[in-house]
């Protein structure tokens, strides 16, 4: 089992990762305030990995996957789980070692555990994004998705970002030695009583599952999808990439809800994925054009910025 220095509860795990990555130059941010399926969809990843401006960030992302809801009855699956997301742009040469350092910080070392980088190619059809990397195994369990971003929104990532996505519940279960997510200790109060994952989330899991699988109104959701899509397009027309991307995220979530509800046939499914992908692409394009128009202010090396501007000259300006 993990050594004595390992965080004892769920929030201890978050704190340990926050402090580790803050020490390594990451800005600590928060999860996005819209429904997302993964930390990758947060604009702090999806948009910030585009273009030449450096960006180092870490945050917890509550991630909703309506189809994975199990009414609070499955010990391993959740409607909403938490990801710890780290973006290092450009990808540092020693990123694997720095990453292994973070595992050590939460009590997982190669002296005690079989740690492995196992090939895994990551792809998000809705975001038009892909990358190569690994799933990182600790004694046969996947603890992190490790990806070198090659493309996002259909655009080459230049420079390449390293993305680390830790599955927090899974790691916490391992550290705490429990077989049921709901038995995780979230924190221990000064009087010694414990707040469990069940106390915090069980009701949410039940109700959200009930909503996703039975109570949602497909007619309304189809309508919302169309309206959100329209709004996204309109905002792109008004050259507002960030608000537009919010509506792209809403479309993505509504699509996930429809999918969980079984309201979308296999043939239609591909069509919806392509619609979201198109929005993501157009948002990414407009975002890049906007940053280019601002001459990539995040890039301290102005000579490099000038050089990079040439690359984005054909985006049609913003």
């Amino acid at each position, binding site marked *: *089992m993990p050594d004595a220095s390992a965080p004892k509860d769920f929030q201890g795990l978050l704190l340990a990762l926050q402090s580790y990555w803050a020490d390594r130059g990451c800005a600590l941010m928060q999860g996005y305030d819209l429904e997302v399926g993964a930390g990758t969809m947060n604009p702090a990843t999806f948009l910030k990995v585009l273009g030449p401006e450096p960006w180092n960030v870490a945050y917890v992302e509550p991630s909703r996957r309506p189809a994975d809801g199990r009414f609070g009855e*499955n*010990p*391993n699956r959740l409607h909403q789980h938490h990801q710890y997301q780290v973006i290092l742009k*450009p*990808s*540092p*040469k020693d990123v*694997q070692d720095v990453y292994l350092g973070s595992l050590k910080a939460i009590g997982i070392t*190669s*002296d*005690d*555990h*079989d*740690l*492995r*980088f*196992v*090939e895994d*190619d990551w792809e998000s059809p809705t975001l038009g994004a892909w*990358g*190569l990397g*690994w799933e990182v195994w*600790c*004694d*046969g*369990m996947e603890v992190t998705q490790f990806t*070198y971003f*090659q493309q996002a929104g259909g655009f080459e990532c*230049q*420079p*390449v970002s390293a993305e680390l996505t830790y599955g927090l519940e899974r790691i916490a279960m*391992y550290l705490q030695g429990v*077989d049921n997510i709901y038995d995780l200790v979230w924190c221990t109060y000064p009087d010694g009583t414990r707040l469990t994952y069940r106390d915090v989330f069980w009701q949410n899991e039940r109700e959200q599952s009930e909503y996703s699988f039975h109570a949602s109104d497909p007619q309304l959701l189809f309508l919302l999808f169309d309206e959100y899509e329209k709004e996204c397009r309109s905002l792109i027309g008004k050259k507002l990439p960030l608000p537009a991307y919010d509506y792209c995220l809403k479309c993505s979530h509504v699509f996930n809800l429809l999918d969980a509800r079984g309201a979308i*046939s*296999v*043939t239609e499914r591909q069509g919806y994925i392509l619609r979201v992908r198109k929005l993501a692409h157009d948002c990414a394009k407009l975002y890049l054009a906007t940053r280019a128009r601002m001459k990539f202010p995040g890039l301290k090396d102005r000579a490099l910025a000038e050089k990079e501007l040439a690359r984005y000259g054909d985006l049609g300006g913003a």
Partner: protein
Amino acid sequence: MDLLFEIGTEELPASFQQPAVEWMAAQMDKALDDARLNGEGEGQRANIATYATPRRLTLVVTAIAERAPDLRRKLSGPPAKQALQDGKWTKAAEGFARKAGVSPDALKVEGDRVVVEQNLRGQTALEALPPILEQIVRGIPFRKSMRWDWLQTDAFARPVHWIAATLDGKPLSVKFADVTSAPKTRGHRFAAPQEIPVPAAREYLPTLRKLHVLADWAERSRRISEEVARAAREAGGVPRPDPELLETVTGLVEEPFAVAGYFEKEFLQLPPEVLVSEMRGHQKYFAVQTDKGELLPAFVAVSNTKVRDPGVSRKGYERVLRARLSDGKFFFDEDRKVPLRSRLEKLGRRTFLQGLGSELERVQRLRELALWLHGATGRGEPRQLADAAELCKADLTTGMVGEFPELQGTMGRVYALQEGVAPPVADAIFEHYLPRGAEDRLPSGDIGALLGMADRLDLLTGLFGLGKEPTGTADPFGLRRAALGLLRVTLARGYRFDVEEALQAAQKLHRKDDPAVRERVWQFLLGRLEVLLREKGQPDSIQAVLHTGARDLIALEKRLNALQTVREKSRAQFEATAAAFKRIGNILLQAQQKGIKPVGFHASLCKTPAEKALAAALEQSRERVSTALTEKEDYLAAYATLAELRPVVDRFFDEVMVMDPDAALRDNRLALLRALHELFAPLADFSRLQVEKTA
């Protein structure tokens, strides 16, 4: 001289490693040839060894020539007329001299051209190798490559961290991406991470062994086998043989340590295929079984690290597997709540392939086509065949197959048996997928065999109809495999039917009738058939038989067997006969090309005794030959008759002039030859045989 070339990387995908070093070795061999450095002495070659682990791709090349021999060669330039004017070299001549790297004084006129003798100094290996190595590291064809950091041009399967290149210990300079070579290497990621001077080429393996890296693939694979066997023994069993998994695991570790783990006995209620898939699929664990092949509630995991307490890792391995098996158990229990037959509606909502309708429509086509095949071959029991067709894709909608696509068919069979479906029908659900590859077994019963054939005919006609036939090496829908499966099953089980009619029936179910598409499918099948038959006959025999017009595969195979038999048994005699038939074929072809219209044969028009003899012999054997060729399928008997006819044929050619000036005589003789040719045409297309011209 000895070269050591090591590319150190972040963890490479297991399946990339061996192909990469094999490619590197082939390139090196070729480059050394081109540089005239391949081997230290006359007629000798350098020895190229390859090593691959998740973190390194290595070439060790020994006995490279120190220096290539000097080379004198003569280059020939522009015509003398253009090169020399008024005794002076022209611009053209000067240009040629510059290109050849000599002064115009060295030019000479030889014949009508300007020439120059060049002395090429042989490069030393030390000079020649760095660019060769850079080309190699840049050229490795990975299935997928990536960039990292700010790099734009150089890509690799994963980021490269170091390159070590030395020749007899002297460092070679190689630059790739953001790495410049240095004579340093590293050991195991955790057990020996420090940078150390790279060893001499011949010391590479033993040095890395000390650094906890078994660089040699075969050695590492062997060690894993031993380790796994030892751990399985601890668990009271033997490892379930799994060469494919062994290969993958070899690409996941640099130094293997096996650990046995256990799971709850209750999970043994799951079908063994499910248990094995759970263990090997995601987890890369080896299943453990008794000597008799019954699974035990145990597994072996192979670690890349010698941990302080294997008990800790074991608990981890067990936890992950337990969660997976619980999931499997969940799927198994849930799936069994919905009988296979009730899943048809769900199939209706799944697209089979864009343009080919839903899975349900596919199943309905398979049912009709399987019954058509039953009608054509007279094999299989129709009721069972129809049942199996309806159920054969139902398991695609189960949770278990959703999680483990490789269990399609397997789960269908398991669930069907539990539902009380008749065993031949249940077996067919699994067996209709057989053979799944070149090495796989074939269906054991008619139901699975015919259903599988229907499945493949449906796929081939469907996709060819959409214009999605394979191009080059790309075969995304597995049509080559489908064609081979169709042919192998048909031949092995001796099914007689006309392939053209079968293709037509399949097309009709796609609501199409397109002879051009059918012809393309048939040609595609012929291409595979040729490969399959290779072990049964010479290439020209196969060609001759495949072009007899028959579209009954068994008939084709029989014809090939007969042809090979006569070719081998009485070679000289056969060759003469075949040559005579080729000659007849040629005469007929020429006549056709000259526009001579075929006419009927009239015995009364026969003039010469030789002609009459041939007509009589043909008449006498006609009945016998056609019975042998059709009803009896006794091709050897037909060949015997053919041999008997040869003296008469020879005499005909000796004494009769076919292309007689008298058109009536000529046409009648052509008609006689044509009748003879057509009679024996089903045996082989003799024009495709390569035989000595003795006739």
